[in-house]
């Protein structure tokens, strides 16, 4: 497979403290790749190294086969970056944000006008072209940042939490647009805290914590492997249930007032548990990526 991003033993330290600790992964052409992890896991640091904002302490980081530390200008000309912060230019209108940004890529005026027209249409911002950035809603701001990151027709799109803080309607609209971009064959790297987003969009993802990769695979395979097909959540479990689970070697997480049972089918105990041990409230549901994520990274609050 044609590799767009190659990372080997990537390390980033701030004042001697490692934020990224020997990361290795690669992203192939046309892949929609997710970089997940709890707060402080090193996601944004990795993303910043990807687009040359932050120089790696050590390790190899190549994009399009070029070294990020020596050829960042050539690389940046071919990638689109959607930063976590709103970095839109508040002194400019919506349309000017696209035109001026095109200027930074040395795109001709005529070409820039055509492309911003296209992007305003695609991201449904045409009616706001003369508005100030300050007047936009959160969803429109995100769409404009996305539109801006596409102005140079990038071969690789880097998205750092593109839907954080959005209302459900806006989030779904962003997903729809990202889905269309995915279909067009664009290579995308995304970080997100929304597991639903990662499940829907990503072909493949890694979960990182403390600067290391914990798992690597497609959302479906990771769910299958780490959380099974189904989950039973039992509220107010009694000691008998815990005894039963221990005796029968069923995997579970004990949250005190709640038990989470992984893959009860595999042990064939689904109906027994549900009929005999459901005292208060019992939920039987499909496993999700969120279950995988919480299982692997723990349930304690970060930061």
């Amino acid at each position, binding site marked *: 497979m044609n590799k767009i991003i190659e990372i080997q033993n990537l390390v980033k330290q*701030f004042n001697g403290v490692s934020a990224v600790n020997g990361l290795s992964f690669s992203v192939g052409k046309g892949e929609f790749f997710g970089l997940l992890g709890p707060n402080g896991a090193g996601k944004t640091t990795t993303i910043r190294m990807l*687009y040359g*904002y*932050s*120089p790696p302490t050590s390790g190899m980081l190549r994009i399009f086969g070029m070294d990020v530390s020596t050829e960042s*200008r*050539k690389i*940046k*000309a071919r990638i689109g*970056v959607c*930063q976590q*912060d*709103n*970095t*839109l*230019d*508040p*002194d*400019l209108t919506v349309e*000017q944000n696209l035109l*001026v*940004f095109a*200027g*930074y*890529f*040395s795109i001709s005026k005529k070409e820039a006008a055509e492309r911003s027209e296209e992007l305003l249409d695609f991201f449904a911002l045409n009616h706001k072209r003369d508005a100030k950035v300050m007047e936009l809603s959160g969803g429109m701001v995100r769409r404009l940042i996305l539109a*801006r*990151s596409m102005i*140079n027709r990038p071969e690789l799109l880097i998205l750092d939490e593109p839907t954080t803080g959005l209302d459900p309607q806006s989030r779904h609209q962003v997903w729809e647009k990202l889905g269309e971009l995915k279909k067009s064959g664009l290579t995308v790297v995304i970080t997100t805290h929304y597991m639903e987003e990662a499940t829907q969009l990503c072909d493949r993802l890694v979960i990182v914590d403390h600067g290391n990769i914990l798992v690597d695979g497609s959302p479906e395979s990771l769910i299958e492997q780490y959380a099974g097909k189904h989950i039973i959540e039992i509220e107010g479990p009694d000691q008998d249930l815990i005894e039963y689970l221990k005796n029968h070697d069923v995997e579970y997480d004990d949250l005190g007032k709640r038990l989470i049972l992984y893959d009860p089918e595999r042990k064939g105990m689904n109906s027994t548990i549900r009929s005999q041990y459901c005292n208060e409230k019992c939920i039987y549901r499909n496993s999700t990526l969120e279950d995988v994520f919480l299982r692997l990274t723990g349930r304690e609050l970060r930061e």
Partner: protein
Amino acid sequence: MIDPAVFSWRFLTVWKRNLVVYKKIWKVNFLTPLFEPLFYILAFGLGFSGLIGKVHYDGVELSYTAFIAPALIATAVMWNAFFETTYASFVRMYFQKTFDGMLATPLSLEEIIIAEIAWSATKSAGAATIMLLVLGLMGFIHFPMGLLLIPMAFFGGLAFGAIGMFFTGIIPTIDMFNLPIFLFITPMFLFSGTFFPVSNLPAWAQPVALAFPLYHLAELARLFSIGTCEVAPLISIGYLTVFCVFFTYLALKAMRKRLIQ
């Protein structure tokens, strides 16, 4: 040292960005250079000149207003450039994250900083041009030599823009710009041979004034306005060049340390 590969003409795209923004607000902004010299000339001309009489400068007798008129242009160059690369650049860098957005494009940080300094010099040159018209109509500036004040203003703007950008690179919060203004800009504004000749200062203070970049800019402004100056113009030009290069270098270093982590 700084890798020469980080510099290219691409910096002009950032300069253009500032021009696009300025075009929206120029109607308010150009009033300051239009009216400020009028106020100063009126205040000092009507109010002061009766008290002061003639000023002895470089062996010539000048009316007080004729003495300060060129210096007003020099001080406007300083204020315009210094404010642009301190408050205005800091807002763009820190609050608006404009530089962060630019860094996701082929622009290098060095190009962004050079563009900011060049833009501040452009504002200085613009202000000087308007003041030149006003003061020229009042007869304080001799033409065509007076036109040289425009490139001089750009050149001086680079020097003050560079030191402003250096402060932006090292200052923790925007309020702290008060410090370089209080300790550096204001004393320079008053004691650089702007409102009275440096020869009026006590002997110990004179060399200090000669080290002020504004002194050399005011000298050049007088040379191009009325053809007199105390210091050889090449010394003034040389001093300002060294000052500009030195602080541009420090500004680039400080901004890289601040933003690239």
